[in-house]
């Protein structure tokens, strides 16, 4: 599902995100981790990012704003010799230019702002531009754009990344660039690839439970706390055991990645990313 957003949609998405996600960062982050662990086909519906863009009205508003107001308020309205309008109480309370309009038309002579005789439509468009800018700024705080530019991430050395992969990183113990990681850079967006190489959340431990009677049951871990474990066997049935009465053997495919977290330098991460990015 792809969204083509106008400012109205950006507003809805922002409010949805603002209302739903930050109130429960726990779920948000679990969701992000879970989504990142899904295969490629499931990536787009995650809506990891909707890059906010401007509506037609806002675009028209920008065309008026830049030559008229931009010299003092900055081309993006974030302030220059004049105030930052994204931080303005008046702009925050404005609806379709009802507060901005009088200021534009009368100016603020005491502060050196001249009056501008603009049409109602021009003022409404400037208002749309300013509100759109504020929403774009706010959306930065909500989520990282998944269409993150590759060149921003690509600061490492691929040759040193290859060396780390084969040597100190110990990656070869579990992975092969011609096997499971073949064409990995074509499977994941750059941003997601970097996240996954640091820690590929989602892989479940395999459990082997031996009961007091000597019976063994194996399967994928569904739930585990300090009291109980639940696994799903190969036929799809779930079984729950009290830890106190059984022996639990766990094979966690992410154990090596947990260890790496404690030793990774930022250079390791960026070199490794540069190397994996060559595996198109």
């Amino acid at each position: 599902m792809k969204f083509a957003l106008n400012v109205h949609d950006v507003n809805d998405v922002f409010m949805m995100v603002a209302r739903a996600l930050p109130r429960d960062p726990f779920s948000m982050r679990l969701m992000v981790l879970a989504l990142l662990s899904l295969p490629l086909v499931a990536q787009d519906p995650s809506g990891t990012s909707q890059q906010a863009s401007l509506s037609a009205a806002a675009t028209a508003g920008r065309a008026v704003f830049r030559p008229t107001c931009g010299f003092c308020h900055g081309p993006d309205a974030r302030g220059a010799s004049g105030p930052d309008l994204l931080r303005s109480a008046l702009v925050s309370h404005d609806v379709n230019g009802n507060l901005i309009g009088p200021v534009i038309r009368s100016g603020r002579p005491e502060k050196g702002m001249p009056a501008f005789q603009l049409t109602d439509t021009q003022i409404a468009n400037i208002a749309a531009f300013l509100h759109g800018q504020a929403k774009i700024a706010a959306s930065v705080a909500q989520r990282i754009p998944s269409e993150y530019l590759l060149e921003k991430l690509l600061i490492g050395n691929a040759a040193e990344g290859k060396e780390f992969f084969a040597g100190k990183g110990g990656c070869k113990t579990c992975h092969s660039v011609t096997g499971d990681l073949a064409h990995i850079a074509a499977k994941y967006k750059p941003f997601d690839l970097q996240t996954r190489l640091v820690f590929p959340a989602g892989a479940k431990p395999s459990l082997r439970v031996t009961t007091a009677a000597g019976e063994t049951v194996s399967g994928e871990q569904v739930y585990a706390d300090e009291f109980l474990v639940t696994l799903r066997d190969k036929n799809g049935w779930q079984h729950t055991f009290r830890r106190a009465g059984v022996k639990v053997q766990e094979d966690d495919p992410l154990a090596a990645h947990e260890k790496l977290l404690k030793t990774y330098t930022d250079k390791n991460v960026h070199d490794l990313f540069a190397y994996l990015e060559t595996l198109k």
Partner: protein
Amino acid sequence: MKKCLWVMFSAAVLASAQGLKPEAIVHPAKDSWPTYNGDYSGKRFSTLQQIDRKNVGSLGMVWAFQTDVNTGPGIKATPLLVDGTLYFTEPDDVWAVDARSGQQRWHYHYHSNEGLHIGQRGLGMYGEHLYFETPDAHLLCLDARSGEVQWDKVLADVKLGYWATMAPLVIGRHVLAGVAGDFNDLHGFLDCFDAETGELQWRWDSLPKPGEAGSETWPKNSDAMQHGGGMTWLTGTYDPELNLLFWGTANPNPVLDGSLRPGDNLYTCTIVALNPDTGKLVWHFQPSPHDVHDWDAVQTPVLYDGLFEGKQRKLLFQASRNGYYFVLDRITGKPLLSVPYEEINWSAGVNAQGQPIGKTEKYPSAAGTLVEPDAIGSTNWMAPSFNPQTGLLYVDTHDSYSLYYAYSTGKPEGFGGRDLTVWSHCYLRAIDYQTGKSKWKHDLGSGWDWSGVLSTAGGLVFSADVHGNILALDADSGKTLWHAYGGGPAQGPPITYELDGRQYLVVGSHGVLFAFALPEKLVEETAAVH
């Protein structure tokens, strides 16, 4: 024991005529939990010991109160208990519930509003007045008998991006109310209202004005300082002897991009001591100078009078969001100890002023920087507990890694970037208050735990794991002695009190408030032994 109970009942009857007297907060009775932290010190320690290590395994449910609110963050409030009534909240709701039966006395619902509904942490009380902060940053005064609104004051402008979540603190006739909001570049402040009339008595601004002390920690010729953040979103503590109020402030803005605000950025990420009668700053200590990771310093400043390096002192502890444990002399604000209590990778040690030094290579970057911990921090709003008998500070901690990105185009606004947690694991740590070292840590599971902590003279620590299991641990060893699953994340911090000679444990689990106690027969036997 019988005489004791009779005295207690008489006190309760007398008190019911006037609600909560402010002086009753100084030495809370065992049949009360009159403030967010149970008292002014922030210890969340109860001297009750009917429930102890030996019998806690017999703890059973007495009642459950269903809020029937199934959306939203659930119960994050610490209930107040006054005269046998529990008062607690969700973002748009306040309930008064009979502490013996779990029956509702009244329910107040606020109108729908555009404030951020991230959580609501509880109420303050003075006489028959309750104080409630709404998501759209109003302070309401409610009648504790009926839930009727007595007055409504605007704390801050929701349109600018402010919201509110905290439990107001009452000191005499002062009601202290802080604000939240860091998606926009706003300024933080702490307001003090008259408990009766609702008139503003004073406002303390987290950010200095040009030329004032602290302004030298911001760039000149820019509006960075006026928009520099420093919210006041968690309840502080109070020392009646010193007449000092201790409050932690939140992060600077733009949050992850400090490029336009070089300097220490006072008074963000700071513990301040204020005079509650005037709002004047007495001293300050800044745990995170020039923060760029969203690690505010709002965590409870816990107050304790005890030994430090062989000398009796008035101490203040904070397990701060940046992973450092601080001990201060709370008369002067002088730092006595600054050491990490959880694993971190961002600090190059401590400076001569006892403040952590941040490594610049661990600042958020366009390519991503791997930092331990994530922006949620080594701990967050989860209430800690200090048991003077064990000398241990019990803290819900997170060991986590996150990729921090700074990616604004043009001038940063609001956050200026964001972090993405890649791994997180939680523990309940028992921290020796004199050294900052953990005596034990109890594994709470993978993910993010948001449970508050309570400790008691019964040798117990109550909290919950990431799955929602409510836990009773041995205060000395961290060994689990009892647990119960409440059906949701147990984010409503546990409290305890005694009514009719029976000790109760009350915990919120998503939209349900649970009360646990020992079976009545066991209570009688325990009473006979004591």
